Structure formats: C-alpha cells, structure tokens
C-alpha cells in the first residue's frame, strides 16, 4: 500500500511538471529571453545526464583511457556528430564498450 502511494505520488508530480506549461501558456507565446534560453535546454540537460554516466565510476570521476565507458562514449559522440544517426551511435557505442571491456580482461 505504501509503495502504491509512492508510485502515485511520483506519477502526480511527473504529470504536473509535463502538463502545467502546455495547459497554462496561451498562444501569446513566451518572452524572447525564454525562447532563447529554450534553445540551450537540450544540450545542457542531455549532457548533464550523459557526462556523469561516462566519467563516474564507483562514486568518483575517472578521466583516463582505462575507463571503457568514457572511450566508448567519445567514439559514440564522434559517430553521432558525423552521421546524426541515433541507431548507429548506439551500435558503435555498445560494440566499443564490449570490445574495450573484453580487451581489459
């Protein structure tokens, strides 16, 4: 029962966050400053999620070639930049991670 309440609570806050701007903001649009700021939301948020996933290892950052996730992520970034293809990025990134992990034994 307690777990169900937690899940309902998470669902409620998640939905509120998603629906409020769409519902409350009319057609008149946003102030120009906000429009400009929105352009930087995807790069800032996505990299804030991705960087720690690549760099952090057991609670501390590991910036070395010994870190297979960092190398695989950099390679994936290169592929994404050259091809703009999410699927290819995924395949190359996973392949690189498996290869590097295997090579390190």
């Amino acid at each position, binding site marked *: 029962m*307690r*777990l*169900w*309440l*937690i*899940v309902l*609570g*998470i*669902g409620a*806050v*998640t*939905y509120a*966050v*998603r*629906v*409020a*701007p*769409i*519902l409350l*903001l*009319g*057609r008149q649009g*946003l102030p120009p400053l906000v429009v400009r*700021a*929105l*352009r*930087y*939301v*995807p*790069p*800032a*948020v*996505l*990299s*804030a*999620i*991705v*960087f*720690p*996933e*690549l*760099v*952090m290892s057991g*609670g501390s*950052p590991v910036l070395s070639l010994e870190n297979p*996730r960092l190398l695989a*992520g950099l390679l994936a*970034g290169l592929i*994404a*930049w050259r091809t*703009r*293809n*999410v*699927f290819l*990025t*995924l395949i190359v*990134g*996973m392949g690189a*991670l*498996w290869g590097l992990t295997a090579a390190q034994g």
Partner: protein
Amino acid sequence: MTPDLRAEGEGPPIEGGETKATGIIPIAGPRREFLAGVRAELPLLPGVIPFGMIYGVLALEAGIPSGLALAMSSIVFAGSSQFAATQLIGAGASAAVVVATAFILNLRHSLYSFSLAPHLAPLSAPWKWLLSYLLTDEAYAVTAARYRQGETEGPLHHAHWFFLGAGLTLWASWQLSTAAGVFLGAQVPRDWSLDFTLPLTFIGLGVPTLRDRPTLLAALVGGTLAVVLAGLPYRLGLMVAAVAGILAGLWADRQRADVGMRD
C-alpha cells in the same frame, strides 16, 4: 478538384499534380503525420527497450511487486525517475525523498513543455492532457525537430498527430519492454552493460543539437558541472548543472550578438 475549377485553370489539368507542384514537403494530413511520428521514433527504440527491461529486473530486485512495477511504467512513464525511485525504494528511503527526487529529475520535462506550448496552444484540452502524458525525452526530441521543419517548410497543421505517433510508439515499447524485464527477471546477464544504452541514446539525440559555440558551451558547462556536483544528494547536481549550462549558452549568445553589432 472540381470540373469548374479546372475549367478556370490556366495550365493543362494535372492528375495528382499538387504534391509535385508544391515541391519538397506537401502539407501532410493526420494519417501521414502520425505515421511519420512512428517512423521517427523507431531508431530511438534500441536505446529504450533494454532500458525498460533493466528497469523491470531492478524493480523486482528492489522488492517491488511485479504488478506495481508494471503499473509504475504507465503511471509515471519516465525512465530516469523510475530508475531512481527503484534504487531509493530498494535502499529504504522515505516516501517524501523518493517523490522529491522524481520531481527534480523530471523538472526538465517542464522545459520541454514550455518549448512545445506555443505549438500546442490551438489544440483542445483533451489533446493537451494526452500529449502532456506522452511528453518524454525521446518524443520531445523528434517532435521539436518536426516543428523546426515547419518553420522552414511552411505551417504544419497536423504536427500534433506526429507527436501522438511518436509518443504512443515510445509508450507501447516502454510498457512491453518493462513487462519483458519483469517476466525474464534475473535471466538478463549483468555483464552485457545494457544500462549504457541510455547515455548512448542521449548522445545520439544531443550531439546534433550542438550547432554553434553557445550550444557547445551550454553542453560543456552542463556536463562538467554535473560531474563536479555528482555527490550532491537527491541528484540535485543534475538540475543545478543544467541551469548553469543554459545560462552559459545565453551568455555566449549575448557575447556573439555584441560582437556582431560592433562589426
């Protein structure tokens, strides 16, 4: 086309010539937009499906009953906060901490919502309620790209169907992969590192948004600060880093505008 109109036309009547004549993209109807949305979402699914399966596996390990683990995927429908919640529930965190963490992690969705709001403003309330429910990272990425196309190729009257197609595709994949994870349980090998598909998907979505110096700076500041602040509780570092990245982008944008005026 009616015979009357055709009689008034200047050139010879062309059979189905409208799409050819208007060039690149004809104004697409609901059906075409919906299918285009489904198609746009497909390349993202290989990053979503393993993630959903891992969530299912981890939820059971954290002691969440399978019925609730499945229900969470449709009640919450947000991968990163479902992962965080699972982790925290497993660690015995209080209800308030779990809900607050999910809230902070999902604040980024309000930014997506702000960005789509002007496009969705003409829609009826039920459309807004439904599309808001389907607003995820992956659906936002392809829908925002579709609206950007609209800015250059003429108005899109049915792009909300594109959003619906993309959103429902992701929703169905998420439910099915979660169910697969719950039923397969511990049979998914740990050493496949399938959790890495999530950052890879975000790399694939994020890199094409790096179009100039300000966007690059936004990404570097956001990412670096997220690493530096990774130790903060409740993953607060993520939010602080994202806001700092946005401010850095705005600042660089401003610098560029100033230089432009001096030239």
